[in-house]
């Protein structure tokens, strides 16, 4: 498709501004003004509408395709939450209004949303307190690690490293490192769990924290999780919970009860807010009681008269990590979703997510090698290692799925599984969708034996065929000129 810039025609306009209704004042001195106007496209409103409508159709999305992208929890996003977010009382609220009239009386509705959401997330996860400020999951991780650092500093300690399993999300070590910690990586044992010997060896009084996902990125619930947590606490380290996989355990177990001290959630995963093509997300952080004083400011509080206010007087706080109160629009959608599902709905979401993933695993395990061969939680990791013997990679299988209208699973993650394909079907997909997807994967496994070339050529029916990624990186073309 042509770029919008290539559709530009000098003099064409797409929008009319109001006429100037004030007397014209002298302009700014020349030295403050730009010499060259930004070369924005000159197009009509219909040009813009058609361009972006047609661009949108070049995407797979949850609303149009099955999207079993492992670790991303691409569940259905209820439509009414979009409508709630667009209510003018929410969308038009300036974030500085609480500064105008003592204690946020101009923003009581939004403050109540934040307060209630923090309470609900605390109960769901078993944590003492939450902040909604972090703007995405990785941002929540960074916030969490900053809280850990503040806690140790307050105890007069400067601990040096954070322990992370080799199966972790890449953001875990990256977050630990940019907050100033060394990263100690623990291998996975032959059963697919954290290697306990290596863990015990690495753990000492220099350990600031242990960052884990539970269930882990292989889709397993580690039965030794309590022992891992207790060992960390014995040396004064804190337990960090990466909430990417919370969708597996709602109402079944809570990170706070296990002993996790800090936790981030991805509202765009478990709580069904749209992923938006890569964001905005939201990554609220929950803490145990001993870390609550360090949470970012401001804190939303409820006064004795039932009104809500912002508290900035927290001298132990790590400070501002977001300009205001988080991605409010995203938080609001998650709040609406939690209210709608309620206690039973949340539990059923996890039960059915786990049911669907195990169903996929059971039907596919004779065609692809299940990683570590166990029953899974909300996602299953399969390996295309046996297909590789025919020269077929997980990438080839993914491209074949695309031609058949399915978004591929997450591939090549976790890094420790050869030719990994991580399937997360979620609870909102019907059995017939799962069956069609499974059939297609079986077909690909059979093709790998009979006609591997068919997989190498895929996709054939997309707007583009396989793209040259090496060329993209070697000769960067990052803007139109």
């Amino acid at each position: 498709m042509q770029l919008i810039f290539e559709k530009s025609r000098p003099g064409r306009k797409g929008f009319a501004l109001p006429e100037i209704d004030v007397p014209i004042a002298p302009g700014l001195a020349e030295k403050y003004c730009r010499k060259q106007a930004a070369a924005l496209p000159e197009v009509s409103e219909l040009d813009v509408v058609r361009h972006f409508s047609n661009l949108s159709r070049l995407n797979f999305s949850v609303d149009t395709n099955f999207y079993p992208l492992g670790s991303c929890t691409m569940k259905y996003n209820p439509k009414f939450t979009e409508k709630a977010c667009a209510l003018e009382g929410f969308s038009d609220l300036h974030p500085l209004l609480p500064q105008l009239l003592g204690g946020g009386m101009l923003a009581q509705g939004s403050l109540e949303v934040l307060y209630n959401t923090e309470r609900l997330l605390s109960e769901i996860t078993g944590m003492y307190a939450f902040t909604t400020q972090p703007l995405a999951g990785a941002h929540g991780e960074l916030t969490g690690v900053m809280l850990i650092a503040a806690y140790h500093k307050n105890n007069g300690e400067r601990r040096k490293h954070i322990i992370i399993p080799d199966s972790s999300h890449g953001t875990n070590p990256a977050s630990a490192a940019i907050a100033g910690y060394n990263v100690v990586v623990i291998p996975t044992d032959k059963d697919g769990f954290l290697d306990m010997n290596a863990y015990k060896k690495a753990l000492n009084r220099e350990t600031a924290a242990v960052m884990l996902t539970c269930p882990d990125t292989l889709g397993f619930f580690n039965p030794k999780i309590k022992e891992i947590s207790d060992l960390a606490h014995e040396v004064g380290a804190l337990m960090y919970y990466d909430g990417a996989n919370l969708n597996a355990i709602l109402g079944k177990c809570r990170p706070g009860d296990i002993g996790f001290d800090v936790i981030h959630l991805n509202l765009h995963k478990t709580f069904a807010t749209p992923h938006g093509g890569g964001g905005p997300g939201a990554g609220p952080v929950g803490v145990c009681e001993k870390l609550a004083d360090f949470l970012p400011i401001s804190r939303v509080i409820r006064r004795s008269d039932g009104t809500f206010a912002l508290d900035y007087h927290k001298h132990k706080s790590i400070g501002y990590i977001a300009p205001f109160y988080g991605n409010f629009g995203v938080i609001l959608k998650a709040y609406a979703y939690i209210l709608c599902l309620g206690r039973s709905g949340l539990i059923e979401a996890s039960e059915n997510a786990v049911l669907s993933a195990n169903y996929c695993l059971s039907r596919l395990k004779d065609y692809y090698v299940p990683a570590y061969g166990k029953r899974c939680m909300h996602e299953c990791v399969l390996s295309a290692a046996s297909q590789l013997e025919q020269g077929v990679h997980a990438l080839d299988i993914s491209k074949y799925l695309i031609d058949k209208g399915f978004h591929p699973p997450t591939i090549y993650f976790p890094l420790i599984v050869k030719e990994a394909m991580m399937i997360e079907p979620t609870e909102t997909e019907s059995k017939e969708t799962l069956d069609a997807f499974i059939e297609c994967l079986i077909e690909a496994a059979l093709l790998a034996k009979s006609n591997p070339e068919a997989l190498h050529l895929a996709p054939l029916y997309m707007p583009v065929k396989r793209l040259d990624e090496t060329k993209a990186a070697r000769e960067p073309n990052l803007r139109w000129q």
Partner: protein
Amino acid sequence: MNYIPHTELEKKQMLKTIGVESVDDLFKHIPAALRPKSFNIPEGKSEFEVMEHLKILSRKNATNLTDFVGGGFYDHYIPAAVDALAGRAEFYTAYTPYQPECSQGWLQAIYEYQTVICELTGLDVSNASLYDGGTALYEAAMMAVRLSGRKKIIVDSGVSLIYRTMLYAYTSNLSIEFVETPVAHGQACREDIYKHLDEKTAAVIVQNPNFFGAVDDFSDIAERVHKCGALAIASVYPVSLGMLKSPGEMGIDIATGEGQSLGIPLSFGGPYLGFIAVKKEHMRQLPGRIAGATADKDNKRGFVLTLQAREQHIRRERATSNICSNEALCALRALIYTCLLGKSGFYELARLNYQKAEFAKATLDKVTGVKVKRSAPTFNEFTVCLPKNADEVVCSLIDKGFACGFPLGRFYKGLDNYLLVAVTEKRTKEEIVQFANSLEAALCS
């Protein structure tokens, strides 16, 4: 209400395939001791009931005030086409375009967005966006530390206090030294900046227009900074770039900013849009996603995520940043918004903002006891000195229907009588005059 399609029969069939009796069997490896101590969440409600609850809450917010509050976040008009197009579920229910062949719409949109950001800032390379203006500034500062191998950063006090506070929070465990230089006559104080500028300096950070609304030309600062082997970073307000000298024209190395004003609702602080653009030579230290053009097997143009060797999913603890997402949907809104306005419309928008603000300055200056600060030129926001505490004045004007500005005493000691007033294209002559009249009345009482 839940959104689960499985019927009881289907669940039984699935359980049978798995080879277990019940769903509980799928959770039985979670030890009894680890089961929830409580799960006290209210039972679910219908969509209608939840919407009613939210409508009631939304009415508890004061969004009917005539808005003169800015402070880096502005009440601009959003054309209906922005909502209609960004509201297409093919955009908002997709995820990061990891699989390019089925994500060409998103990838092309990001490439176009990057082009718009480069055009606005006058710089060479933009990424696919960051969380907000504050985190973008933090990422820019960290880029400068990596590129220069130095650890001292000079920050002009005209940079938003919110962003400065964020910078300090993020770097509190790193040994980075920040030096704040004062604002002189409304603008960045050259003398103080140059006094601190040395061979240990990684970067100088400035903002245009600054928090008090003053416009500046940082060309001289950029030149001096470069002589020292440091980088010049500017946080900018994108709507002002319709008119103001671009960071690129000033010789700035890294431009960042808050993109909220480009078609994104105020929404009580987010989601917003952080943008960052750099000179070409700094490209490989950029954080976050970047889309690039390439070709497919048939030599047809297509787009992919590229230069990924910088990123956390590959480099893990050695990545340039821990960011894993971007604000794609907000970036899309900014793209659609700027395309609708177009080359001349974007300039007209900036001019309209400037002219309305100039009229407001002239009008407020006539109010007895009010003094508009005129030490430096401004764009669409300016500072006024009131004869009494700005907090009190703001409170009394709320009753008249005006959110009349941001009382600077909230952020700055000794500025209790100062008010920061923003005027966008949405404010009419009549509203500005009424604001001045109400202010006059409030000051007399």
